[in-house]
């Protein structure tokens, strides 16, 4: 508002250059307190004729100005104190109106005060509290020096003859004004007004705060420690209530099961591939029983470990197929030998792992029979021996691991071939060669001892020894028997 009511000494030029009457009014007084910008010359009435209100009214570009909002607000502001001051001249003193050009075009007169001033007062009351009774005084007090308005008004009023028509013409414009801005707004503008150059130096407090902010500890506390502590405290405060914790857990499980129960994740059945009937039955007992089941609930690794824990299963592959079926692909162990222990007969595979129990030897007559402690660790050698002993056919009863280091081949009739720990296969082949050449095993031999490779030995049965002794007694001396060789 400061700009609208020029103070003496105010260096600010008026906003509009149109104040036609203003210079005239000011002339009887001292020089106007503001300086007109150079453009003001254009609008200054050059002669007395120009001062006539009729001329002024068509000279002023009224419609344009009325439509411009900020200007209208300024008008309202400029006229603010007017309605409360109905004293002639004081309200519409040309000086008060001068700087915002519009009112200046309206020469103030008594008619105008009656016609326009009254409705305006009413309207400002409508606009809610802005025009408190004492505010006019306050506002004028704020715009610094009160001017002697009354002596000014009188000559002006005399000078303006054709006021009434003019006032009528201007009335709608005045009515259209918004109310004056409140006291607070004016105060704020006043406060902003003194435009001293800003001191670039920080205040002592700002400087100290800045230094404090640059202190690493403070910085860390404010930027990291504080927020973290705040969040932790807030979370701890929220979770300290048991009900809220339970509710949160409920929300979580609901959310989780909502996703798990979706049809995309349901498994509808199990498909067992590559298993024989007994194994299939065992697997069917292991596999999940209720379908459909969510694939999130299936512990495939655990199931696989369980399946592979079965003796008959060498390897298992589990996967959930695209058609929502759990596929169990099994590779079974292949029994290659029968191992007789104290518990009974067992089928074992090439690695010596137990495959299944066997109730009767005859059920798998095709497999060699092993016995003895540690036989399962040397299944491969036993198989090789069995293959080598194939020419003996049914005569072979089984293979006995002796002392966990060597093999005995047990033949029918409780005969044995004792094989060495090293080179058992070649020793057996040698025995077979002897058998082929000299029908060794067809003779009455109880044990063929090949444990010392350089010294094969045979033990004859009791009857044979007797027979040998008898033959030796009768036979001419100097001829020794073959078997001792």
């Amino acid at each position, binding site marked *: 508002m400061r700009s609208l009511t020029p103070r003496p000494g105010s260096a600010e030029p008026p906003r509009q250059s149109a104040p036609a009457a203003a210079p005239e009014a000011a002339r009887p007084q001292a020089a106007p307190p503001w300086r007109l910008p150079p453009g003001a010359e254009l609008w200054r009435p050059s002669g007395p004729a120009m001062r006539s209100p009729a001329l002024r009214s068509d000279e002023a570009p009224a419609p344009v100005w009325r439509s411009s909002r900020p200007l209208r607000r300024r008008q309202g502001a400029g006229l603010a104190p007017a309605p409360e001051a109905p004293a002639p001249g004081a309200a519409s003193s040309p000086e008060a109106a001068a700087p915002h050009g519009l009112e200046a075009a309206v020469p103030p007169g008594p008619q105008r005060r009656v016609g326009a001033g009254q409705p305006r007062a009413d309207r400002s009351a409508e606009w809610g509290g802005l025009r408190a009774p004492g505010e006019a005084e306050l506002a004028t007090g704020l715009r610094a020096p009160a001017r002697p308005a009354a002596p000014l008004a009188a000559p002006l009023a005399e000078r303006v003859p054709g006021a009434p028509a003019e006032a009528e013409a201007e009335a709608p414009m005045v009515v259209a004004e918004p109310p004056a801005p409140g006291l607070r707004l004016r105060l704020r503008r006043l406060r902003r007004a003194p435009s001293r150059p800003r001191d670039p130096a920080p205040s002592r407090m700002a*400087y100290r705060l800045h*230094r404090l902010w*640059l*202190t690493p500890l403070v910085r860390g506390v404010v930027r990291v420690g504080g927020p973290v502590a705040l969040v932790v405290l807030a979370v701890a405060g929220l979770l300290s209530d048991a009900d809220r914790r339970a509710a949160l857990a409920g929300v979580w499980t609901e959310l989780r099961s909502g996703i798990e129960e979706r049809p995309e994740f349901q498994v509808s059945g199990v498909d067992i591939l590559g298993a024989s009937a007994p194994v299939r039955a065992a697997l069917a007992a292991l596999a999940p029983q209720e379908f459909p089941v969510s694939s999130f609930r299936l512990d495939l690794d655990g199931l696989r470990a369980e399946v592979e824990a079965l003796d008959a299963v060498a390897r298992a592959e589990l996967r959930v197929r695209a058609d929502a079926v759990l596929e169990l692909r099994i590779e079974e162990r292949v029994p290659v030998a029968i191992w007789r222990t104290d518990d009974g007969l067992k089928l074992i595979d090439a690695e010596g792992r137990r495959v299944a129990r066997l109730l009767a030897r005859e059920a798998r007559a095709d497999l060699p029979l092993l016995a003895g402690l540690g036989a399962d660790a040397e299944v491969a050698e036993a198989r090789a021996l069995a293959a080598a002993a194939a020419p003996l056919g049914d005569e072979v009863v089984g293979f006995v691991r002796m002392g966990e280091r060597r093999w005995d081949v047990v033949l029918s009739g409780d005969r044995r071939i004792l094989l060495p720990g090293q080179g058992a296969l070649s020793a057996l082949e040698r025995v077979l060669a002897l058998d082929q050449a000299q029908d060794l095993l067809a003779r009455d031999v109880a044990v063929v001892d090949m444990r010392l490779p350089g010294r094969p030995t045979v033990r004859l049965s009791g009857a044979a020894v007797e027979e040998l002794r008898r033959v030796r007694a009768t036979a001419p001396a100097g001829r020794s028997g073959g078997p001792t060789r």
Partner: protein
Amino acid sequence: MTDLYRKQRAMRQLRRAAMQRGVVAVLDVGSSKIACLILRFDGPSRSREDDGVGPMAGQASFRVIGAATTRSRGVRFGEIHAMQETERAVRTALQAAQKMAQMRVDHVIACFSGAGPRSYGLAGEIEVEDATVAEADISRVLAACAMPEFGEGREVLHAQPVNFALDARSGLSDPRGQIGRKLACDMHLLTVEETAISHLVHCIRRCDLELAGIASSAYASGLASLVEDEQELGAACIDMGGGATGLSIFIKKHMIYADSVRMGGDHVTSDIAKGLQVPMATAERIKTLFGGVVATGADDREMIEIGGDSGDWERDRRTVSRAELIGIMRPRVEEILEDVRARLDAADFDHLPSQSIVLTGGASQIPGLDGLAARILGSQVRLGRPLRVQGLPQAATGPGFSSIVGLSLFTAHPQDEWWDFEAPPTGYPARSLRRAMRWFRENW
């Protein structure tokens, strides 16, 4: 004197603490600008040998991490005139530099140019106690220098041992461990007005900082703008600042004389403002853009618009020729240089083996100054810029910054001063104890 000794020792202690912390600010309180650099010391230099960077003069051991310059306020002739204003300006510079460095500094080393520096050459001589010169002998010989009467209200700014002589051999820089009987030393003492220092200390205290050292800006700009050979062979550095022109004479890498002329670039500006009737800001601008000291024929035709800024934009549009401007500037610059010449003559600069003169400082950027200076001061004149230090912003590499760059070199490698040595024990018990110790050492 002991009071001064204690104060300076305390400042050295603070400087050591700052070094340990690794961050220290250097502050140049000048008449036209206040500059502040924040240095970070990372211990030994990080550059390796194959980088081609040697240890140099210590300028590789620190890095500038913050720099700020602000217009000086309240400083005239290099002395603080309006304390509050200066404090604000110092605060502005420090805050901006700290903001750039993103680091808080607690120690500051400052320099200023004015306060009427006066140089004294002192000499002292003692008998060496043992056959070999020990550290205690050095401090004794420094204490044996006869203190001149430099008057009330003056304070010692620098007291640097410049030369040592042992028996007949002179020119020793470090006589410790050498054998001889008579040890003599020459010391250069620089005193300034006490009030100037206490004003500066007060300003810096008000900024919550501790003063860890103080130097003469003439000395600092000599450190930065003289090359090593010039410092060794003898040279004068003339730091033409805004309100004062400092000069320092170096030989054998020691400053042997410093003085200041209370005139500078601001006086040239005010001459222009008075002569052309323009505001100071305009005068400064005209001086910076069009100034010179040697007029040629072309300068008569080159017209300079001096917007009077009197508000009458249409009518007040005066112009002057550049020759007129030079005509205003030149007498003042000549006056400054003649004053400098007088000081140099007083210091017997003519008798130095090498008489090179280096002009630096903001006012040395007047075009043609080197020619004019050569006519007045002697033929070996060059314009000097400060040494390049790591991290110095491009804007702070001009000659106006040679004193602050020199101050950072001074911070990194301060020269030995009198107070760097332990004061010799003067009391009776200490002396007799030492004698007893010596007797034990010799006989057992």
